[in-house]
């Protein structure tokens, strides 16, 4: 452990996957996201344990609860591939991607910026 970390009262949470090659820390609001097994589409975990393509319906959690939801998702291989926690924030219009991977998650949510005809409902 680094000297900086030792001097802190509470060490920073360990890094976790944030999709692709990106890493993040388990700080702040999170949603569990993954790809649908059959179509590969970006999906989000709902409070009922189902998966939705609409981020507005996703369950939002933080800390240990977020990690617990991720663990739950990791057992759902019949429906999804590669779950991870993505940073989100609550906006007036609903849940939105946030943090360093905002652009990546916005594109996953909405579709490629170069093909408006393939846009998903946002």
């Amino acid at each position, binding site marked *: 452990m680094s000297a900086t970390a030792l001097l802190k009262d509470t060490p920073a949470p360990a890094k976790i996957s944030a999709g*692709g090659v990106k890493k993040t820390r388990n700080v702040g609001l999170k949603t569990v996201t993954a790809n649908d097994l059959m179509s*590969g589409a970006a999906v989000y975990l709902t409070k009922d344990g189902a998966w939705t393509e609409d981020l507005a319906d996703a369950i939002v959690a933080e800390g240990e609860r977020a990690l617990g939801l991720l663990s739950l998702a990791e057992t759902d291989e019949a429906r999804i591939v590669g779950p991870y926690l993505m940073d989100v924030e609550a906006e007036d219009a609903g849940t939105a991607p946030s943090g360093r991977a905002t652009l*990546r998650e916005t*594109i996953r949510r909405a579709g490629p910026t*170069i093909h408006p005809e393939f846009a998903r409902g946002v």
Partner: protein
Amino acid sequence: MYHYDQIDRDLVQARVDEFRDQVRRRISGELTEDQFKPLRLMNGLYLQLHAYMLRVAIPYGTLSSAQLRALATLGRDYDRGYGHVTTRQNMQFNWVGLGDVPDALQLLADHDMHAIQTSGNTIRNTTTDPFAGATDEEIEDPRVWCEVIRQWSTLHPEFSFLPRKFKIAVTAAQNDRAATQVHDIGLQLYPNEDGEAGFRVLVGGGLGRTPYVGELVRDFLPKEHLLSYLEAILRVYNMHGRRDNLYKARIKILVNEMGTEAFREAVEEEWQRLLALGPGGSVDLPEAERARIAAFFKGPDLTADPDGEAVLKEARADSRALDRWAEVNLHPHKVSGHAIVTVSLKPIGKPPGDITSNQMDALADLADKYGQSEIRTTHEQNMVLPHVRQADIPALYQALEEYGLASPNAGRITDIVACPGLDYCNLANTRSIPIANQIQERFDDLDRERTIGELKIKISGCINACGHHHVGHIGILGVDKKGEEFYQVTLGGASDEQAAIGTIVGRGLSADEVVEAIDRLVRTYLDIRRDAGERFIDTYRRLGAEPFKEALYAEA
């Protein structure tokens, strides 16, 4: 061109059947994702941001019209009506559903194609000159050797789990259109003083996060020993290549760490061991087998047409649009009265390398009508009709125009190479295609583009460099700075016979700054070039980065 024999057919069909069962087992839950992932990757199936992506191998970029129609069908029936030509001369489909993949692979198998070894730590599709078999610059058709390599490397048990992926390119022309110097192995076929053809062998070139131009390890390798020598190189790599660090696992790192001389000696030692096995033990190809394969590449029987040039000249005089297109999209053919046609997949404002299923069908029809039923893909994300009568060019041009395939920009500033970037790719940091489109739109002026002349811009959305930015005359690399897209510019790269890795000239630019900065670079070039015949890259080589650096950051 090469046609599958029964062995090829049985092998590919067995693989389709095997993968069909693997997909079934994954869906039923018999296989976990950890178990399934390496199996799907062995069949070219990636999972990207929005969907599965199927990468189809196009061996050395050669397609028949029937194969192109099959790819059109794949795009239409199992994807969203288009495909994407890659910088490895392959074609990717971005929206394939898992349940459809076995049928898509069956469609490919029915047309002598597959997606094997388009992923994983294996020997990937061997690439070559898209003008092979048509240009008078080559000593012989390099595709014969590409096919030899394909047969040798396909499911080669010793080389199916290399430290990292492995890419080979072959050229037989002095003008290197296959980027051989930036490949793990680059093979340059040329005649020695006695007129015998052999290979100059370069090893350890590559792009990615540690770009290198390949090192010469053998100046002249007799053709008949190609496979044993390749086998020796791969064995040394397989034995000594690093497996402890993903980023240091490519052969370029091994060559660099061992030193070229030590690497060459290790290869030589292994090669001598293989040669000592003699004809029955070495993997070198018997002459009869080479001749059998070579017979497939005899090429079409073209009749010289001494009047063709005059017919085309007259048509060009009558049509400015045809003339402007012909100026850059046609290249000389070895048979008089014929031409090699580059079909640009870079219309302004569209993703570079994309081609719709309808366009594929149309191009296949045009290849049947005017081009001996043959099509090539290029590592610059275009297509080529290699054998067209000059007298047919005006009609071909009109038809291409009708299908949006007549962009007059081959080799010009709007003929931009770009990786899929963050619009599709799971590894990307930034988008590439929108930057390419913005630059295209800025330079969407045929007169200005013509004044600028040859200028190759290549864009990658991350350091993996699938957009080959290191070898762009102007390279653009997307970098993520705290969640914002920035773009680092490199200058002076080239992938031809004067291959060079571009130099980073300064800090990254924001997405909003890139187009204006490129425009300033181009204006500077036009101001300081010696004359209209001096290309951007020539001016850069003459004057270095300094004047361009000033321009790049002048108002940023």
